[in-house]
């Protein structure tokens, strides 16, 4: 449907029905201070009784309100085609800070995890930005990003702006003064998910399964502990975010079940890029990118031997987790908590 079709609909159908057909329409009316309107009237009829001076404050006249309202309905009824199904992204190398060519051609597919390792300031964020803006040899690194094997056109680069990459970092906080339930419902509304109750419920359950300490739906998001916040952010990103690519910055300090967190993200067909120095996470990735001096110096596929060491690292990690939980419960930590001691 085009905007003009909406104009016809809005002119003929009582506003009550319009509001039921397009639940978001109530926001548009509220934005121009039209609340508590007579639902049996059409919008043009309602506007007859509205003070023109009030509309002028919003830079609108009666006809413009109808047109803008229709454009609003059109914009929010449009299915988001800018994010087509992404079956792969490919990073083609550019050059490092000294201008040396970067020997890189890496293709990542949904469900894959790539870890990024390298010292602070080595260019990890730059790599993310190249992916985010779908660089076409026109950023300082001269890298090129392909989507589904081919170069995206300029229109797509602009239209996907900000929607391609979701980010999770340890610096992030919740700032909204909302309960967990309100927060999830609001996010679901912004994604225009018609029946949000189910996904809100699922998101809440997943977040709670990741968090060390459980929380309730009526907890304020600003009152969640660091680990609880991170769990909610991960569950929300996996289940409610539209972005097909997720970049995680340092998950290790979060105090949550990191293994399960990664599995949840991967299980929801996301491409996960993770900047980390946590062996458990780095080795769990399918590949790891080594960055130095602004350039990728190596792409390491996790070897069989590394996968074997992973079992040992997991054992160490779970021993640590047990101790953490003992401390949390107020218990005394004993030699029995540590497997190495028991063997001797």
């Amino acid at each position, binding site marked *: 449907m085009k905007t003009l079709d909406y104009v016809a609909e809005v002119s003929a159908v009582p506003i009550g029905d319009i509001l039921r057909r397009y639940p*978001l329409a109530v*926001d*548009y009316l*509220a*934005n121009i201070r039209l609340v508590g309107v007579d639902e049996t009237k059409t919008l043009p009829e309602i506007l007859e009784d509205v003070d023109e001076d009030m509309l002028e*404050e*919003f*830079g609108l006249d009666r006809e413009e309100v109808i047109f803008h309202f229709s*454009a*609003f309905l059109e*914009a*929010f009824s449009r299915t988001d085609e800018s994010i087509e199904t992404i079956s792969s992204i490919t990073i083609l190398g550019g050059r490092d800070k000294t201008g040396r060519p970067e020997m890189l051609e890496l293709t990542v597919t949904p469900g894959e995890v790539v870890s990024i390792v390298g010292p602070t300031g080595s260019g990890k*964020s730059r790599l*993310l*930005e190249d992916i*985010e*803006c779908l660089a076409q040899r026109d*950023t300082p690194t001269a890298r090129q990003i392909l989507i589904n094997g081919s170069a995206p056109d300029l229109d797509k*680069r*602009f239209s996907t*702006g*900000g929607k391609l990459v*979701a*980010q*999770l*970092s340890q*610096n*992030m*906080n*919740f*700032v*909204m003064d909302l309960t967990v339930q309100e*927060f999830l419902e*609001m*996010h679901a*509304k*912004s*994604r225009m998910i018609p029946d949000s109750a189910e996904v809100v419920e699922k998101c809440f359950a997943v977040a709670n399964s990741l968090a060390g300490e459980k929380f309730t739906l009526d907890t304020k998001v600003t009152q969640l502990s660091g680990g609880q*916040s991170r769990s909610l*952010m991960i569950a*929300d*990103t996996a289940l*409610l*975010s*539209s*972005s097909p690519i997720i970049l995680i910055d340092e998950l290790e300090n979060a105090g949550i079940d990191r293994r399960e967190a990664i599995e949840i993200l991967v299980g929801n067909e996301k491409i996960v890029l993770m900047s980390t120095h946590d062996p458990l996470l780095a080795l769990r990735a399918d590949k790891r990118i080594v960055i130095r001096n602004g350039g990728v110096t190596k792409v390491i596929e996790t070897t069989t031997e590394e996968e074997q060491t992973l079992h040992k690292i997991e054992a160490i990690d779970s021993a640590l987790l047990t101790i953490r939980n003992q401390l949390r419960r107020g218990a005394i930590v004993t030699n029995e908590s540590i497997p190495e001691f028991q063997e001797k």
Partner: protein
Amino acid sequence: MKLITVAGPPSSGKTSVILKTIAALGLPPGSVGVVKFDSLTSFDHQRYDEQQIPNQTAFAGKICPDHHFVSNVEGAVEWGMKKGLSVLVTESAGLCNRCSPYVNGILSVCVIDNLSGINTPRKIGPMLKYADVVVVTKGDVVSQAEREVFAFNIREVNASATVLFVNGITGQGAFMLARYWQDTLDIRTLRDRKLRFTMPAAICSYCTGETLIGEMYQMGMVKRMEFDDA
């Protein structure tokens, strides 16, 4: 010369976004200039000076900041042409939420920050509604969900604008904004161009220095509030 108008609430990160975008443009030093429109004081010129960016600051003082902007922006363009700039950025702060300093045919950028509350996009009016590009800053410190909800609230007010997330500290995202700046038309003057939205009507006795309160001291354009009967 390309002209870009940047507006946004105080401390939303306009100067940082402008500095990062100028860097991303990669033009020769001295070819991008800034004219800052502020109300009373501004410290931004120091930051532009540090980067050797030609800049001028104008203070509205007792004049309505919006009226002050529109009566000086043409002069700003003349200054830019004389300096031989290839890009001129006007930066406006201290505008009331009723206003927007945008001109038809001139790229309009609105900068707002993610920390300012989720309903802010619905409250700031024409400054957001008439922008071509809405830049959201401070997105690195809030959750992904809040970024998405914030962007959604922006689209509810201005469905046709492009929403870009720019990190004013690292410059992440400035590259895309620079692409928009590069694609704008070259102009020589602003004469006879039209504002996208009318300026506030401001002709009352308080405009001319009246300070006493009371109906008898009020003249000109006065909007009276209606209260519930007690």
